[in-house]
């Protein structure tokens, strides 16, 4: 989820750049007669335009939920506003990229195709249309569009990365590797391309080469948990046990941070504390869980919140072997909810731990 939001933020930044450099481009209407002699990539644009006309109005899905999405909807509305005044290919392209990144590829395709219909000379729109088709699983089509994109702009590292992915899905491993290498040469910080290339190298048994690319990717993007996970696995295969453990530790740390970030951003007050408490309990972090349940009970909870917090608190006390407090908490829970299905289990667990202590 976090990664997706990063993509979206990044897309917003990119869109701003596209708009600023291309916002004033003049529309270049295509002659109707040209359609009969279209090249394959041009024919695709015509097909998309016909299949999916430009939708009217904003996409309501973008605006719900987190602040990141709210930022995106702000950008969407701004771009739609500009589009009404100045329907230029750059604005269509920017909206196409935004929708593609926001998980709305059908809408994204319409805008990208419209942009290219107005001005087919922009490599960026071709490359994003290729990326857009990737998300539909149309790999051969995506490869065709991306090859055209890099022929227009051979310095577009992102297009080469997507081209590598498309070729890889078409079983063109040599072509895929070549595209990723080109992307890396153009942009040594192209971490995604390095990770993708590493995956192919690993498949070929070239674990050392794969490991080197992953290390580079990790240097560029040290907080990417997916790279760390892969690094840990290959390090272990190569016999670098100590490094493997370190990468595993870092990976786990990032995962926990992300989980907690999600939980903290998601719910509020008593319910957030219950959620966090249960999360900590699930991870065996009982000491951290207990204060969360205490917070709930001190905050004038609703009956349901109170029951959940009492249950969580009882579980913590049992596991912490604070037997007297645990017994008292279970007694209170029994008075509140004598039929609670977890009550018997907790009482059994308490008895078990007590007997072990004795």
């Amino acid at each position, binding site marked *: 989820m976090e990664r997706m939001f990063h993509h979206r933020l990044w897309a917003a930044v990119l869109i701003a750049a596209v708009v600023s450099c291309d916002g004033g481009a003049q529309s270049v209407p295509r002659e109707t007669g040209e359609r009969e002699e279209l090249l394959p990539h041009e024919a695709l644009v015509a097909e998309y335009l016909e299949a999916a006309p430009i939708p009217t109005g904003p996409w309501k899905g973008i605006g719900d939920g987190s602040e990141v999405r709210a930022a995106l909807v702000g950008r969407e509305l701004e771009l739609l506003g500009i589009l009404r005044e100045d329907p230029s290919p750059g604005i269509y392209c920017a909206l196409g990229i935004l929708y593609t990144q926001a998980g709305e590829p059908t809408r994204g395709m319409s805008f990208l195709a419209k942009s290219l219909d107005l001005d087919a000379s922009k490599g960026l729109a071709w490359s994003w249309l290729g990326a857009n088709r990737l998300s539909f699983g149309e790999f051969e089509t995506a490869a065709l569009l991306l090859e055209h994109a890099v022929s227009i702009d051979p310095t577009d590292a992102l297009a080469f990365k997507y081209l590598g992915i498309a070729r890889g899905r078409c079983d063109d491993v040599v072509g895929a590797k070549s595209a990723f290498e080109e992307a890396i040469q153009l942009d040594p910080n192209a971490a995604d391309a390095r990770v993708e290339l590493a995956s192919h190298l690993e498949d070929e048994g070239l674990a050392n080469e794969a490991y080197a690319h992953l290390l580079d990717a990790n240097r560029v993007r040290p907080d990417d948990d997916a790279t760390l996970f892969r690094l840990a696995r290959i390090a272990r295969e190569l016999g670098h046990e100590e490094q493997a453990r370190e990468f595993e530790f870092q990976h786990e740390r990032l995962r926990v941070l992300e989980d907690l970030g999600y939980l903290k951003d998601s719910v509020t007050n008593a319910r957030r504390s219950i959620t966090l408490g249960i999360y900590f309990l699930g991870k065996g972090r009982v000491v951290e869980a207990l204060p969360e349940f205490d917070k709930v009970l001190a905050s004038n909870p609703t009956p349901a919140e109170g029951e959940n917090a009492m249950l969580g608190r009882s579980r913590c006390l049992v596991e912490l072997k604070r037997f007297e407090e645990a017994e008292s908490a279970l007694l209170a829970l029994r008075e509140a909810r004598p039929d609670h*299905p977890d009550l018997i289990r907790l009482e059994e667990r308490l008895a078990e731990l007590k007997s072990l202590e004795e």
Partner: protein
Amino acid sequence: MFRVEWMELANRSSEMRGSLLPLCLCSFLFTACSDSVEPAPGTARKGLSAGPTEDGSRLLVDVTEASGIDFRHSSGSVGNREITETIGGGVALFDMEGDGDLDAYFVQSGPVRLPGDVENRSGGENELFRGRGDGQFESVADAGGANDSGYGIGCAVGDLDGDGLDDLLVLNWGANKLYRNRGDGFEDWTATSGLGFEDRWSTSAGFFDAEGDGDLDLYIVNYVRYAPSSHLNAQFNPAAPKGFRMTPTPDIFPADPDQFFVNDGRASLTDETRSSGISAALGKGLGVVVTDVDLDGLADLYVANDGTPNLLFHNQGGNRFIEKGQVLGVAFNSDGRSESGMGVDSGDMDGDGDLDLFVTNFEDETNTAYLNTSEQRFGFRDKTAACGLAEACRTLLGFGTLFHDFDLDGDLDLFLCNGHIFDNVELIHAERTFAQPNMLFLGDRGKFALADKQLLGPGVIGPDVSRGSALGDLNGDGVLDLVVTNNNSGAQVIEVRPATDDWARVELRGPSANHRGLGAIVWLELSDGRRLLRGVNSARSFASASTTAIVSGTPSGLIAVEVMWPGGQRERFGPAAATGKVWRCAFGTGE
């Protein structure tokens, strides 16, 4: 559609069983095995027609109406959006009477119990449909005694007492129910068996022979602790727009530990969750598949967990398991992330001679294909994208899933049940829907492509909110058909009509009480040198139980069948085991 009185059915059944008994005794009791048939090549299909098809080339055809199966699942929703409501339910295809025809058992959910509402549990009974063997079914009154009215999620079948008839386990949100199959009806065996009446939230289960002693043990997958008291947690979904209630995700509920019961051979179950090592790992489980990832003859268990790492219990023998999900690379996806595992199946996806794993997940996660890399080093790699299974499913939420050679070309294909858990998902995503299309991917040695729409008859792929799915020969033509359950909607019966006649069917007669050979591994040896690997398993998909008969395309002809029985003993069967297309391989009769 009419209901058959149970006594009438019992009488008919006992007549049938009586006449078959001598034959059974002298021919390895195949009548007790799943769904024995012997179709003659080239004979007319016995199946029902769903009406004229446009060109007669459909691979899958919806025959629900003609089949007489009119089961309709009820979630019991009254608008509270409980987490329980959009999960169930499952289906079991098994030969309840031992007459050779598959019957269909459907699990009903029904009203959700609220605090103080424990007694009010009217309706919501599970239903049984007796198969006639020709594709038509009749509703059986009171489900033959297995009409449990708990809040049902799934079911599993296995012959616990070794009498040759499959018994039935019903998995509930609440206490589970175990029914002993008498052949003429079911009796509640829950207390007698030692299963107990604990309030749990069970979703899927698998009967399997854990230690190779010939009787069936039991693994039960449990989901989260969701007591009626946490009913108000239904408002907790953090994704919900302000002022709207959405079904909660499982994040805020603690995991409910899975259970492992050992059978003493007389249907008496002992809870050995702790001593077996199963309790060493915890997850929010929805699906389980019994498999054998290292082909050592000891059945392993792979559990799909929702939001927590998937678990692979590697069987050490002697009822001991070690959880190796992370070590073997099947706990997370290739990015090291826990996904929202729902349904699961195991099969040799890429035809390289080992068993791979496939898990369905939440939208935007892709489903995940873990390919077994035993040819290099024992373990798995997430190869979803390379298999062609990533992008096409990314916007869908998967549940039940089944590997099967639907088009009978010798390669495993893949069926996916889809459907969201948020009935108002459009509030947070404009183009996502609650009802979603199911999918059939046709396999070609590790590459999967969506089946051409022309192969799928009207209504076959929904859209609906599909959950469970089970395979079984419903119409007696020998090939396996499909039943799909839909949440809060009618079940679907789908007839499979492959275009080729080059196929074979393998039925096992296992050692002692494991009469269907659950957990066995089968190699089909073709004349072109290919060896098709298949697992014999009932517990797969989600919350459901399939037949154990193996049906596969044999393009170059089948020359022999090798079986590795639970425990590791191997036998090879030549053409003498075949009658027409059906190879009957009984323990102790091979080479």
